[in-house]
């Protein structure tokens, strides 16, 4: 099954957290892979396990969290690595951009220090070379007057500027894989568009694969080719942007798409929403996790539905929409 073309291959990933109330099953038996230069979007509502999936492969799970399964990066399992082995890859080959640009930069250090330390550590550049490279990256993310700005502290930057700094910081070592965890969620809409344009431009330049985590389906369409829909820690549907947007097979994906507000619909229809709440991750139901909220649920759903795959590599976990 090992496909050398895959940059990252996640196999049977489980992520759990020990809490005083019991074990929280954040990610359950997830399989997904990404090729070099590809862009994959992971979508789903809060608590669907998107963030914990990437945290586990970055080795950044909280103290009480543990991951099992495999996350093969260039054939080597990230989950089995010690912190120091992981540090050979983190920041150099795999970079991550976090959700909250306001708190993800160190408020006590100049941008200069925070950027140069990455290349000085991974590529052994000296201070001058590192600074020059960092200035260049800031210019690439269109921060005006980067020579001056690099000497400033994070609080002297706006939210959108800080996220650009985060993007620049992530791309410093020209990583093979860039993980962006809701990079635009905390930003206003125009800045969101700028950041996603920026990421796709930079991706074309350096052939960096991107995993984009978001719950904003609009951002997905602009940036990714493939989409993974997660629900209650499971992959429920995976396919190209076209397949997911125009031919969603899973009722959850259909519900998600129906709840996107549209300008071309009459106002009196109001906003669609999926009734109910995601299941409790402490005690997941048997069978299909979505059946309590699913308008198309039937008896068969009390058993775990199979992952179906059509010829166009469109996969979904439901009894419905069966292929012949």
């Amino acid at each position, binding site marked *: 099954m090992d496909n050398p073309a895959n940059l990252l291959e996640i196999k049977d990933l489980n992520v759990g957290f020990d809490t005083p109330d019991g074990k929280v099953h954040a990610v359950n038996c997830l399989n997904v892979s990404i090729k070099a230069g590809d862009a994959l979007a992971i979508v789903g509502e809060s608590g669907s396990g998107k963030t914990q999936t990437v945290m586990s492969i*970055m*080795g*950044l799970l909280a*103290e009480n969290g543990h991951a099992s399964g495999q996350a093969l990066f260039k054939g080597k399992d990230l989950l089995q690595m010690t*912190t*120091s082995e*992981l*540090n*050979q*890859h*983190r*920041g*150099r080959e795999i*970079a*991550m951009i*976090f959700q*909250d640009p306001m*708190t*993800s*930069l*160190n*408020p*006590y*250090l*100049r941008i200069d*220090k925070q950027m140069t*330390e*990455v290349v000085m*550590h*991974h590529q052994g550049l000296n201070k001058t070379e590192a600074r020059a490279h960092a200035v260049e990256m800031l210019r690439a993310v269109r921060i005006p007057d980067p020579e001056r700005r690099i000497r400033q*502290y994070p*609080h*002297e930057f706006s939210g959108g500027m800080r996220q650009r700094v*985060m993007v620049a*910081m992530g791309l410093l070592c020209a990583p093979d894989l860039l993980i962006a965890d809701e990079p635009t969620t905390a930003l206003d809409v125009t800045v969101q568009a700028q950041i996603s344009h920026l990421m796709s431009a930079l991706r074309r330049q350096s052939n960096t694969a991107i995993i984009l985590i978001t719950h904003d389906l609009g951002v997905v369409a602009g940036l990714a080719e493939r989409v993974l829909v997660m629900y209650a820690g499971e992959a429920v549907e995976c396919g190209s942007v076209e397949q997911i947007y125009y031919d969603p097979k899973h009722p959850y994906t259909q519900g998600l798409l129906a709840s996107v507000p549209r300008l071309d619909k009459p106002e009196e229809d109001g906003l669609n929403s999926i009734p109910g709440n995601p299941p409790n991750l402490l005690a997941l139901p048997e069978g299909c996790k979505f059946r309590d909220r699913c308008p198309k649920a039937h008896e068969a759903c009390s058993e775990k539905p199979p992952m179906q795959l059509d010829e166009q590599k469109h996969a979904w976990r439901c009894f419905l929409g069966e292929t012949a």
Partner: protein
Amino acid sequence: MIQDSGMLKHSLQRLLGLIPTLLMLVTVAFFLIRVAPGGPFDSEKLLPPEVEANLSARYHLDEPVLQQYFRYVGQIAALDFGPSYHYKDWTVNELIAQSFPVSLTVGLSAMVLAFFVGTLLGIAAALRQNTRTDYSLMGFAMLGMSVPNFVIAPVLILLLAVYAGWLPAGGWDWSIAYMVLPVITLSLPAIAYIARLTRGSMIEVLNSNFIRTARAKGLPESTVIRRHALRPALLPVISFLGPATAAMISGSVVIERIFSIPGLGSYFVQGALNRDYTLVMGVVIFYGFLIIILNFLVDLVYAWLNPKIRYDEKR
């Protein structure tokens, strides 16, 4: 550069603000000590009225209180605390000049020791959060905070001076041997407090988003701690240092008594008991001055550590 000159201006303003604060302190202390019953020349044996009158006239105690007050304020404006009423032949300036260096030496050594040992232990505990190391370190810290120094001191004397005979049990001759026990005794509670403070703030900082970013960069954990976590984790410790240092370098009555150290601390008590008005005023003003100066220094260090504060002051 603009930033630096703003800082300088700010510092000068703060130092000027010292004057009204000290004046308020002088006023309150001056009247409080005079409200207390008894006077500097009261004793078991009544003095003949003419002697008492002479004494009062000599020290201007026969003047109306307000006149005394203004005379005193004028006097301290010239940095003269006047003669001690009890330690005849000594001025308060001389008493402070003679005893403060001793207290400063002991107190500063204790504080430096407490800062380094306390932060190191706190960081060690934070990095091994909820392990046996953490629990035992914090257990000791709790002990260090709750056992009073008049218990620690005799125990240390007994063990290290009397039984082991390594160190003198008390006394003072400016040599290290005489400093060891008082410095340890004085620093233990501070070590304990700083360790707990550091542990708490370090744990909080290590859970913050920017530490996660630093880890995602693939930096070694030691670099993450040193470069990214240490500075914010030390901020609460720094703000504790100001008043704590003032208290330590102005001398501890208990420790000076137990170890027979000729420090400043005993004058606080002796001055008050003897109604030695000038001495009490002298040490109170001196202590107030120390507190204000040290808090000012803490604010400077704070601004140096925290760029956000620097920026706000600039505006």
